């Protein structure tokens, strides 16, 4: 079990010595739980850092935001920035480094292993607390403990952990500068891509029925895109509203942006947006689950991205976030890539 002091000490130490200019981690939320992402810059702030089952956010997003801020302010980064990263988050950082968004030496990864407990899926919690309002959560071996007005409640982790954690095979952050917690790798409670396999037993018509209903609900709020660390593009290719204008953008370019889809949040346009996003995330999505968590209308986006991930792994032997040095999925090929579908 990770001692929270270790995280705080590491952060305090590095900030005090000036070895990093900031540490991205979690602090207690305004209502106690869930935790919220925090960027601390002073050693004294290290005591605010927490580590509990509500640390489900993918903090790699904040690395991206930090870089964008620096780029727009035309500042150079100076000392590296540190990030407290779970196993899944560390893979996201690897993808960002694979794409040169960061140099390895610019990020100090304080890896934290969930040691197989996974993180909490809040919507699953309600039925276990009989109406009690939790104010704090903590890791306790194979259980989570919740502080409530009615006393401490213990719930088996596997009953309330996020779906993606059930299938997770890499709880330990392989890429790290320092790693806290035990290397309990390869644990899976459910077969990988189990939900995907279940979905694929549906017929073509049933699948369309399903996705039609999902995408009719989409309001194109783009929360999924905003929360995804991989969606760092200045201008989203498929979205004609979000247009990046640089000093060298000509008037002609401004007038001639491609409108791949209409702005209206109709089913056809929504589907095209989501399919494009799934294609662009193929080989890059590490299944941090944030897109699905933040979707205000509960579209099962993980299903879409998992489909691409499984194709990448099973057909092309490609694992997203496995290696900083390797080529990306769509920029490379193997001589024996499947081609039976080609006439």
């Amino acid at each position: 079990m990770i001692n929270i002091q270790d995280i705080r000490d590491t952060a305090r130490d590095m900030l005090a010595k000036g070895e990093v200019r900031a540490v991205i981690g979690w602090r207690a939320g305004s209502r106690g739980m869930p935790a919220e992402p925090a960027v601390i810059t002073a050693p004294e702030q290290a005591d605010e850092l927490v580590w509990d089952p509500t640390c489900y956010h993918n903090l790699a997003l904040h690395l991206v935001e930090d870089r964008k801020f620096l780029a727009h302010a035309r500042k150079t980064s100076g000392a590296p920035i540190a990030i407290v990263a779970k196993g899944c988050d560390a893979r996201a950082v690897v993808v960002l480094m694979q794409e040169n968004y960061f140099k390895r030496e610019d990020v100090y990864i304080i890896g934290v292993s969930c040691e197989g407990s996974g993180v909490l899926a809040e919507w699953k919690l309600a039925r276990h607390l009989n109406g009690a309002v939790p104010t704090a959560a903590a890791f306790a071996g194979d259980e989570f403990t919740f502080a409530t007005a009615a006393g401490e409640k213990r719930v088996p982790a596997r009953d309330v952990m996020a779906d993606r954690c059930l299938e997770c095979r890499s709880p330990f952050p392989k890429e790290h500068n320092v790693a806290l917690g035990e290397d309990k790798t390869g644990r899976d409670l459910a077969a990988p891509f189990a939900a995907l396999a279940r979905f694929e037993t549906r017929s073509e018509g049933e699948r369309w029925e399903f996705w039609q209903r999902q995408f009719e609900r989409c309001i194109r709020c783009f929360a999924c895109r905003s929360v995804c660390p991989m969606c760092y593009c200045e201008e989203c290719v498929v979205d004609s509203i979000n247009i990046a204008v640089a000093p060298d953008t000509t008037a002609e370019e401004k007038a001639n942006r491609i409108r791949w889809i209409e702005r209206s949040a109709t089913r056809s346009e929504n589907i095209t947006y989501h399919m494009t996003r799934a294609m662009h995330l193929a080989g890059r999505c590490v299944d941090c689950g944030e897109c699905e968590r933040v979707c205000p209308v509960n579209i099962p986006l993980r299903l879409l991205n998992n489909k691409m991930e499984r194709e990448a792994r099973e057909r092309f032997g490609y694992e997203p976030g496995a290696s900083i040095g390797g080529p990306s999925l769509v920029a490379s090929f193997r001589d024996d890539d499947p081609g039976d579908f080609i006439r």
Partner: protein
Amino acid sequence: MTKKRTGVFVCHCGTNIAATVDVSRLAKEMANEETVAFSKDYVYMCSDPGQNSVIEAIKENNLDSVVVTCCSPNLHEKTFRDNATRAGISGFTCEIANIREQCAWVHKDRGEATAKAIKISRSAVRRVARNKSLEPIAVPVTRRVMVIGGGIAGIQSALDIANAGLEVILVEKLATIGGHMLQLSETFPTLDCSQCILSPKMVEVSRHPKIKLMTYSEVQEVTGAVGNFRVKVLQKPTYVDPEACKLCDECTVVCPVVVPNEHDLGLTSRRAIHIPFAQAIPASYTLDESACLGLNPIRCGKCKDVCEAGAINYDMLPKTVIEDVGAIVVATGFDLYPQEKILEYGAGNVEDVLDGLQFERLCSASGATKGHVLRPSDRKEPKDVVFIQCVGSRDPAQHCAYCSKICCMYTAKHARLYKHHVPDGRAYVFYIDIRSGGKGYEEFVQRAMEEDETIYLRGRVSKLYRKDGKVRVLGTDTLTGQNVEIDADMVVLALAMQPSKGTEEIAKVLKIGRDKDGFLAEAHPKLKPVESVTGGIYLCGAAQGPKDIPETVAQASAAAAKVIGLLSSDTLNHTPTVARVRRSHCTGCEMCVTACPYKAIRLENGKAVVNEVLCEGCGSCSATCLRAAIEVRNVTLLQVHEMIEACLNV
């Protein structure tokens, strides 16, 4: 943006297009397009008056772009682009809409064909509306040439190019040039001594002031593009100084290592230190490192001890030489299909069953038996020799599907040579067909049959095996309908020609294609037989496909002519429809760098930069980029987007 003024020229192509597509309606529809300022139809747009009318129209109507709706761009894209240039606008503002091969010629219904022609034309109009006025990129060239392969093809090509005044580097992987032609005894149809006609050329190569000969060398790496290749060549150490070696042969006498002699295809042996054959070029001995006991006086050192000329140097090191050349000719030749694969004919394990090159060595005066045709097993003169054609060729089920072209002729030659050596012997040839299409070839075969009394049996051999000191051959004669059994003293198999060992590797290094049988692929089977698909790299000889010596020499000279044409001026024009980076969108992820088949993109200061000389405009980068930060000029994402809309009448 100033309003586009596109001219549309609809060709009738006589009745080829007009019979199925309503050309005047097409011209009218195009006139309605927002960017079209001029639209007309004419019976033959590619004719002189047709072309002139295009030029006039451009000038008179201030057109800045042109769409010609006609036949395939393969035919007249260049024609109309040249017209555009003559009229004063960039050739790259002219595009062709193919409404003949891809429309009028393949559909019958006038309504459907016209509707489709309108879509195709509208698509071209919308695309051209965004074409930039590009000009070809001038690339300075290196006026030196590398020829890879020192057989007759490489030798001829090198001589032709060098005689035109260009510097040539001839790279050969063996210790001597000459290739397989050197192993032949006589050549058909003249029965000229092969060595006699080849040696003068070999000597000419060695003496030519413009030819740099690199033997015992192999090409390792090639970078760059047409006009500017950089080649890394590995020169392996021969351990003998060619300037010092006096060819006295004292070293072979003392060398304790005996290995099969490759030049005689294993029929004789040689020592570790050896000369491939007496008249090798360069004239020097070579120490075969893989056979030698150890290159070290402690292990052996005998050859060095007896070398009075002091030519042997165990400390020679491999050298990597870098050469900059403007063009490359690939003449890497052929090998015979391995006998081991022919299970029905003994898989190489039956004694006295030879392949064609081995038989040549028996016939050759400098060969294994000093020119006498003798059985390898007991050195007796064979009285019954069976020649089997099409071994491994014309056999799609088990071996090679193609015909190896030369076997009928050299089998006739072998039969004739055998009969000249052993006049009282009997020569049998099992054949399926006789392919004797060259000058004097048919007559040559007839002489084999009539004058030299070779017995030609039309049928195949089902199997052969050793029996009582002879090779029993079981075949059939389909013209008489009888089975034939011959107890032969010797059997010669006309094995298929296959690309030489190392062809696959050299094709990868040069980034040129190979065809379905592994031979180097020509750019067009009819019209571009000596050009590879990669600019600046030419092919000749058996590396490109089975062929005889006259064809090889013709191709070698043809490749030389192409090279001389390519390098006839100091600069080359490179097509400007290359990739362009939108720096504002590029995040430096390097996916395009990885995807580019030409390694034409690199990262500079965190953004992708395209080497416009290396870029061929394939668009792989553009399709890979997640953020539309790179696209190919004049086939941009926006242009394709509008073409899609045009195709769907949106």
